[in-house]
């Protein structure tokens, strides 16, 4: 070893990175034991997974190629990719769900940036959702496609954004009612919120499937997806209302009193003074809730709507590609993970962003 190499090695050993790892992995005898045990566990579990998932996997070809190999069949995901995205939507018209998906993703992209938080964004939500629905159903641009043929990732995104868009205004009203001094409205809000939060979402979906068709007059049949959307929006609004209420609770009474002293009425106090401050506080919580909602849309599979998860599951029942459930589940698991993990990182960033005094100009915790 030359002198310069020895010097470099010594420098590396005294660098903070090396020290962090030395203390973090072998700081005490107990710590070293943990490191060795964890390494042993990884050494036992990782190589077979790697062999199955990458080394012995089939990346292209037909199901016959897959059957010949012992590893994962990623060719299946390639062959079923369109089905997992769009399910039974007529193949010639699949540009529509593709366009809808791009529109919705663009909407999310713009909604995620605080500098676009203007009134125009609300208009954009209305426009995009309305446009998506007409595009998918083809009311203005025949041929029409009934919603029973919609499916895949696009249904997951569409149901999620519509329900979220419907639930938010309702949640604000519920939270205001629950915090108000008006006994009648407060009781209504409390009963509704506790009823929804005490019930599993599966039960709510069964209400949409079994009860709602009986409750509409003269047995007019509303579409199953519409019924599910109505019930899910009601269900989520209860959860959102509790988060909004948490924000309303920390606004100091002085703010209400000052607004009253300025001669503002109830609605103007709320709209101009209280809600803008509360929103800054609750937005990270709302984003976390929205991530949970995206995961919860997978329950649509229980009532037979072809959302992302259900589409993936039924793609493995295709006689040509029978039984590649592991690959299907891993692939959609990855899609959900990418969306939700990205969302949770965004939520963390937003929390620190809004806490900066120059941004949260009216946040009391500023």
């Amino acid at each position: 070893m030359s002198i310069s190499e020895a010097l470099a090695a010594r420098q590396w050993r005294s660098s903070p990175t090396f020290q962090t790892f030395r203390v973090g992995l072998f700081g005490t005898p107990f710590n070293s034991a943990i490191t060795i045990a964890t390494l042993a566990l990884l050494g036992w579990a990782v190589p077979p997974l790697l062999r199955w998932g990458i080394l012995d996997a089939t990346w292209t070809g037909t199901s016959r190629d897959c059957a010949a190999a012992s590893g994962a069949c990623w060719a299946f995901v390639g062959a079923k990719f369109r089905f997992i995205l769009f399910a039974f939507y007529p193949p010639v018209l699949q540009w529509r769900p593709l366009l809808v998906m791009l529109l919705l993703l663009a909407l999310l992209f713009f909604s995620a940036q605080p500098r676009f938080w203007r009134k125009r964004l609300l208009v954009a939500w209305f426009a995009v959702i309305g446009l998506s629905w007409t595009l998918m159903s083809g009311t203005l641009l025949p041929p029409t496609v009934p919603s029973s043929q919609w499916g895949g990732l696009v249904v997951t995104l569409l149901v999620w954004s519509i329900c979220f868009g419907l639930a938010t205004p309702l949640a604000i009203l519920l939270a205001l009612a629950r915090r108000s001094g008006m006994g009648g409205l407060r009781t209504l809000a409390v009963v509704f919120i506790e009823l929804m939060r005490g019930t599993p979402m599966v039960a709510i979906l069964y209400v949409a499937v079994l009860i709602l068709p009986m409750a509409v007059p003269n047995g007019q049949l509303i579409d199953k997806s519409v019924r599910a959307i109505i019930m899910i929006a009601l269900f989520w609004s209860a959860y959102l209302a509790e988060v909004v209420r948490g924000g309303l609770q920390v606004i100091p009474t002085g703010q209400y009193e000052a607004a009253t002293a300025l001669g503002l009425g109830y609605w103007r106090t709320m709209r101009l003074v209280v809600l803008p401050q509360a929103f800054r506080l609750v937005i990270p919580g709302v984003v976390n809730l929205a991530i949970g909602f995206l995961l919860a849309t997978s329950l649509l599979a229980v009532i037979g709507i072809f959302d992302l998860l259900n589409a993936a599951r039924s793609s493995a029942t295709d006689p040509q590609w029978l039984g590649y459930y592991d690959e299907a589940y891993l692939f959609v698991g990855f899609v959900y993970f990418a969306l939700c993990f990205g969302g949770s990182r965004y939520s963390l960033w937003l929390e620190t962003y809004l806490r900066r005094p120059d941004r949260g100009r009216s946040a009391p915790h500023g």
Partner: protein
Amino acid sequence: MSLRVETVPGPGGPGIARRISLWWGRWPLTQLAIVAAVIALIWLLGHNTAVTMARVGITPGFGFLERPANFEIGEAPIAFRAGDTYAWAILAGLLNTLRVAVLGCVLATVLGVFLGVAGLSGNLLLAGLVRWYVEVVRNTPLLLQLFFWIAIAKSFPSPRQALSAFDSVFLTNRGVFVPGLVFHGVSASTLWLLGGLAVAFLAFVVSSWRRGRLDGRTFGLAAGATLAGVLLAFPLTGAGVTFDRPALAGFNIRGGYNLTPEFAALLTGLVVKFSATIAEIVRAGIQSVDRGQWEAAKALGLHGGQIMRLVVLPQALRVITPLTTSAYLDLTKDSSLAVAIGYPDLVSVINTTANTTGQSLEALTLLIAIYLAINLSVSMAMNLYNRRVALRGAARK
């Protein structure tokens, strides 16, 4: 506007009417109109439902509970055969839900606390591994995880080629076999004796805790005495306990406990999902205790274990307990996903009931009422506990 609070409509003097009008608050007529509109909407929906039911020839009401149910239930803690009443079937479903929920809460807590502590252990590798486990589990749908687990449970080999661990746990396509205690000759007097012992133990612990005399030694002595009592209770009343291990016998495995693939998959899914939740709660709870508390405790001469037990945990529990309770409630609600993988829980039985009798309104009302009752009673107990903990904290300040 808000000055109007002083001039609420209604009689001026103190009295019940004034108190009601104060409670009812501002804009009395608008409120009345909204409440009336909501009631009218509910009435309209109910009326339509009744009309529809009458048209298909179903009599509304809960009379169907007495009728025989002509379906089978895969597994139940109580004996159920096709032909028993619907009420009995629903009870079986409820017990199935409670069984998986209680077991799930216990196992998720054990695994979650272990993971939470492992994440804070200071070992970079282990903490990183726990971090990834939590992120993957939290960012994928529970239903997807359940589908994954049931696919695995169904793909186990037949009992003859069962995968086994330590020759006592067997993984087969007929379910998971685990060893356990098997009781025989248990009579009513055994149960009474055991119940009495449990009550005596709890009463002793609670009363000494209230008097502030509960420490490790007292608790250990009481637990030891109770355990000795339990061990004596069995021979005294002529009952016996053996430790039973499953073993291959012919084409099947006998002995021990058999968990069906559905139950095993549901339990695994719930435990994995909620262990990640609880690990996060434990981490947040312990990190919520100010660093200064650790330093002050160290300055007082306490050692590691004492700091944790006497200083950090009591404060962390104030954060941990309410969050854990709501995680338990979520777990109980999420156990309803059982219906998607074929475990006969409450939702699944109610769904079958609704489909076979056509009385979906009544069946779902029952379902929602049962879940509400579970939820509200647990949250009420939680609120009582919270008030206690909060008051003690405030008094010490």
